[in-house]
């Protein structure tokens, strides 16, 4: 399952095959389970053995909401979805999911563009955003974490 062996603690890694392009990094553990984000050990206590790039996986919307009361530095409104990734027939671990913003329909200007409509069960794919939320606008120390990551957009049928 693993794309790479790693012990990195980042949930947005760097693609070694295409230097500089961010990856959507989940972690695989010795018992075959995969989680996003990575943890020190897996759900059953197994050690980390590698990473899986979720960019290459399609997902389905488990549920979604549009938040109209957003905290400082967050686009308003902010449509969020929990997405479950398709991990293939060989995977029998717990579901691999991510919480993410729904992408804008146009230029990517969060303040100007509408966000895609999604519904439960819709197929979606990750799309990279270099800043999901304005660092330093909220209470979290800007240097304490990354602020880029992945949104989701519907897959055209």
């Amino acid at each position, binding site marked *: 399952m693993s794309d790479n062996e790693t012990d990195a603690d980042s949930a947005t890694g760097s693609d070694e095959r295409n230097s500089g392009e961010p990856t959507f990094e989940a972690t695989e553990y010795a018992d075959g389970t995969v989680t996003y984000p990575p943890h020190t050990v897996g759900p059953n206590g197994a050690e980390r053995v590698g990473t899986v790039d979720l960019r290459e996986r399609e997902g389905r919307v488990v549920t979604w909401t549009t*938040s109209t009361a957003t905290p400082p530095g967050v*686009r308003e409104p902010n449509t969020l979805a929990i997405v479950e990734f398709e991990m293939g027939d060989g995977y029998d671990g717990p579901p691999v999911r991510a919480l993410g913003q729904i992408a804008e329909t146009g230029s990517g200007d969060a303040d100007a563009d509408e966000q895609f409509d999604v519904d439960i069960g819709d197929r979606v794919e990750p799309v990279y955003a270099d800043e999901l939320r304005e660092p330093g606008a909220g209470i979290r120390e800007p240097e304490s974490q990354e602020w880029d990551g992945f949104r989701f957009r519907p897959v055209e049928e």
Partner: protein
Amino acid sequence: MERVAIVGASMTRFGQRDAWVRELLAEAGAAALDDAGVDGDDLDHLYVSNMASGEFEGQTGVPNALAHDLAAQPAYTARIDQTSSSGGAGVYAAWQSVASGASDLTMLVGGEKMTHRTTAEATDVIASLTHPVEYKQGVTLPSFAGLTARLYLDEYDAPRESLGKVAVKNHANGVDNPHAQFQKEVDLDTVLDSPTVADPLRLYDFCPITDGSAALVFCPESVAEEYAPDGSYAVISGIGGATDTHVVHERADPTTMGGVVDSSDIAYEMAGISPDDVDVAELHDMFTILEFLQSEDLGFFEKGEGWKAVEEGVTDRDGDLPINTSGGLKSKGHPLGASGVAQVYEIFKQVTGDAGPRQVEADTGLACNVGGFGNCVTTTVLEGSQ
């Protein structure tokens, strides 16, 4: 292990208060000491449940400040922070201190000062409990509620109106609670027509931002009558604490709160009861959807059936299992560190027959205090002494 009794209880008025956190804690603490008929220097241990006085107000070290204000030195003090379940975790710590024999008299005071902050700021302080991959997406606790409510309604074919009926019920209960932030009924149309916050949830599906404090005094059951000679004390017959995943989307079933299941299993076993034996319950209705989830995960109703209980009036004050007779967080308010303490205050009042117009027939009551979005949970079972 020594059985533990509660022999004193108090709470301040919840709402928008001029007082700051030190003053709120002292107000509730002094009243609880008075209720138990003891002085500050009688205490062996003094705990303060508080999530974020440093972040909200720039005041840290609140247990020591409270001990000084109540002349409780040299009592051992500690601050208990478990986010929204700080109050329940404080009950656990206070129970543990007496049950273990480390303390013969313990007071717990929970409190928070929040309303001087804007809604956006307060929401962000609370959302700071989330994992970095959640926080950067702009998630808030209300948005977790919206995500879960949509899934619940879809999976269990529940009508949107059933969530609104939780708000209507709890506001009706709050009318008779002089400590509640809102002592005002709301009708279903008002709930359903209120502004959307995290759809499908609307403004009246959410608890308010609140200032307030509550306090409890604990001692060994064997000496409880020294403090409460009329028998007006309650016994903690069961208590359990548990955690679920930090990252909410990693839960196997997003409509199940594993911490509620696990903590209540422990509490029921310790008390030697089943969910059917509970006469009254205070649940953590920070959002209306949480009352459904907890009432199911506590074993009161089958999974996916909690909404029907509300529709059928089972959880009304005059129903078979009254839930949130205090008005719940929804109507009473939610000063983070105080809420779990105030839940036990209400159950204490119910099982000692001192709940006034809110009184229901209750020998055994349960409080379920939830932190994060089910991340940490304490479930407490109380029984009246008589």
